[in-house]
């Protein structure tokens, strides 16, 4: 199963269909499909075509610049990189345990980001597919169409995201690319006015998040034939898990399960991540393919993100989200749910949890404290791991005695899902495209499978509905046969 449809035996005899770029995702990627004369699918690949190079060009820079510099990887969830880098550098400056205020302020920043990113993905990027259908009228299958047909839903999507961005602004200094987190702590606490401003709206935010869970739950359960099987593949899954097995986005230890939910490893200090995870390079993509060392690259790949996290934890600490998690687990029937479209359901459960945690934190007076920084015995190497909106994010740095970075290794969330996304795309191609005339609606099925993972393909750029989709069918000799374009 793993390598089926990855490489065709005789590609030179096949026609090539390319979805380039994939739309309504973060970043730039493309899908290529090789078909024979009967439109039978022989090869499907999700390619990541951007090259970023951050790991290289931060070498030789002073370590204290890194949390601010590496967050430029992404404009959607820069807080993830900002915090993962800070956590790695906490180890280097000897700040193994932050002050309560610093840890809570960082957590607030991160949960604000989780809220805004999940809202953006669900409402702006995916709700057109989910509310109108995968091959519905393309002129309405976008956020503007959602705003016209479901104005209240669209408005809530905008306001949920705005609230998350405000949480980031008051903790990081800016809505995008702030500087709040520094090695050893944070540089600002909240003022009473900032806290009270957020408290005014948080109860709406929680209610709207609950409604969003119920909306996607209804969509999912009304069409189980589609939602439980679309793009399905079985795989291992991984996330960090907090104290006592709680769902935790900010801190914890690594836990992985196999496709049946059996624990593969647990309570792993992420400083030792490279004893457990290795990355494979494939010539056709700039994105690496990570896998569990103990299982090997053929069967050791895994998925991360909401679907992994919600099923990997033992419980969620906040009441509304925990109730929704139980409903989801009951629906899954006692074994892990692997359907990619279930990512949407679990993502909304996470958004609800983020909103509830934000409420709890806003009632904690530690947020107003000025006890923000610690440092201790200097180390030369550190690893920081965080659960970013899209999944587990690793930052690993080494510094020299002059405080300059000598090595950086980043495994971003979407990289962890690389093989998983390819598998989902292949399943959809087999199920929907095999033997059929290619249409825009059918190709959107491929994109729907990719979008479920909320990939940040370059972890750097994004485009919303503006990216033209061009599909060309070309004979093996290069003769154009058929083309479709979406302006």
């Amino acid at each position, binding site marked *: 199963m793993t390598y089926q449809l990855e490489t065709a035996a005789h590609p030179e005899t096949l026609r090539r269909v390319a979805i380039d770029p994939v739309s309504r995702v973060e970043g730039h990627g493309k899908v290529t499909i090789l078909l024979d004369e009967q439109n039978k699918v022989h090869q499907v690949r999700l390619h990541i075509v951007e090259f970023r190079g951050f790991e290289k060009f931060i070498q*030789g820079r*002073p370590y204290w610049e890194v*949390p601010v510099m590496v967050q430029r990887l992404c404009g959607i969830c820069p807080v993830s990189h900002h915090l993962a880098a800070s956590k790695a550098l906490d180890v280097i400056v000897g700040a193994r345990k932050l002050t309560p205020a610093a840890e809570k302020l960082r957590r607030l920043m991160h949960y604000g980001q989780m809220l805004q990113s999940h809202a953006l993905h669900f409402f702006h990027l995916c709700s057109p597919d989910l509310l109108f259908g995968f091959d519905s009228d393309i002129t309405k299958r976008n956020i503007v169409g959602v705003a016209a047909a479901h104005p209240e839903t669209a408005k809530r999507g905008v306001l949920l995201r705005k609230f998350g961005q405000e949480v980031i602004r008051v903790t990081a200094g800016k809505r995008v690319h702030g500087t709040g987190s520094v090695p050893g702590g944070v540089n600002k606490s909240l003022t009473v006015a900032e806290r009270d401003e957020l408290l005014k709206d948080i109860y709406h935010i929680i209610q709207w998040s609950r409604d969003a869970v119920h909306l996607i739950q209804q969509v999912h359960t009304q069409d189980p034939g589609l939602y439980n099987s679309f793009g399905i593949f079985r795989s291992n899954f991984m996330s960090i898990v907090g104290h006592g097995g709680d769902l935790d986005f900010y801190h914890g230890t690594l836990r992985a399960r196999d496709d049946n939910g059996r624990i593969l490893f647990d309570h792993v200090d992420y400083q030792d991540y490279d004893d457990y995870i290795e990355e494979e390079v494939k010539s056709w993509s700039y994105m690496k393919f990570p896998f569990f060392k103990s299982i090997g690259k053929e069967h050791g790949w895994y998925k991360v993100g909401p679907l992994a996290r919600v099923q990997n934890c033992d419980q969620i600490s906040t009441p509304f989200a925990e109730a929704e998690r139980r409903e989801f687990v009951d629906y899954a029937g006692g074994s892990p749910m692997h359907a990619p479209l279930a990512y949407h359901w679990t993502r909304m459960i996470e958004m609800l949890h983020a909103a509830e945690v934000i409420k709890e934190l806003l009632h904690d007076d530690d947020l107003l404290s000025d006890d923000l920084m610690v440092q201790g015995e200097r180390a030369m190497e550190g690893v920081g791991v965080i659960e970013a909106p899209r999944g587990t994010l690793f930052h690993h740095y080494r510094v020299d005695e002059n*405080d300059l970075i000598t090595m950086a290794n980043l495994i971003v969330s979407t990289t962890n899902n690389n093989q998983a996304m390819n598998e989902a795309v292949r399943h959809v191609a087999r199920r929907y495209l095999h033997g059929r005339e290619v249409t825009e609606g059918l190709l959107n099925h491929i994109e729907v499978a990719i979008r479920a993972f909320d990939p940040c393909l370059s972890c750097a750029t994004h485009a919303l509905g503006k990216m033209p989709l061009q599909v060309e069918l070309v004979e093996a000799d290069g003769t154009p046969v058929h083309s479709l374009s979406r302006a």
Partner: protein
Amino acid sequence: MSHTFTLDGKPVPFTEGQTIMQAASAAGIFIPHLCYHPEFKPHGSCKLCTVKVNGRHTASCTMRAAAGMVVESETEEINAERRALTQMLFVEGNHFCPSCEKSGNCQLQATAYHLGMMSPHYDHFFPNRAVDASHPEVLLDFNRCILCSLCVRASRDVDGKNVFALSGRGIRTHLIVNARSGKLGDTDFTLADKAAQVCPVGVILKKRQGFAVPIGERRFDKAPISATAETTEER
């Protein structure tokens, strides 16, 4: 005995020996500048403080004021020239404001905002300049050097150490450290030196301290550079 000249049509008093820049600063009028510092002998090299005196271009930091002078500063023509000079400074070095510790406290950045610089306009040089991290307390990031020579003057004239110098000629001019190894760690430079306090950009930085001051609380977050002319020595 007090005299006056006009600056953009307004009378400005001066005392004998004052430059146009000194008289304007004393009167609370901002003239953009980078290499000028009230505590040091004018250098006249950055040319940002160029004004027109009786119709002729001159550096206001070196030109002594004289009674009856007609000085133009805030005109579209002169600001366009200042903007071009600023753009050249940006492309000659590697100025990545988003990850620079000096962002918000940087005179080059603040001057660019003041002049309405919207883009670098010119092709970047992308020079390959390594940082000097050899000193235990101070990092030198040559990527951001604008050759104002303030550190050279401060180290030589105030600290009496002569740690820095400008070497090379023309476009190859660059800041060096006066040590056999060329490394700051091999000099007697300290954080307490005046030269450690005067850099208008982000070349001379205290080590292991980054982004300690939040966005919104940095010097030019609070007021534009034109409103802080009288406190330019506070860097």
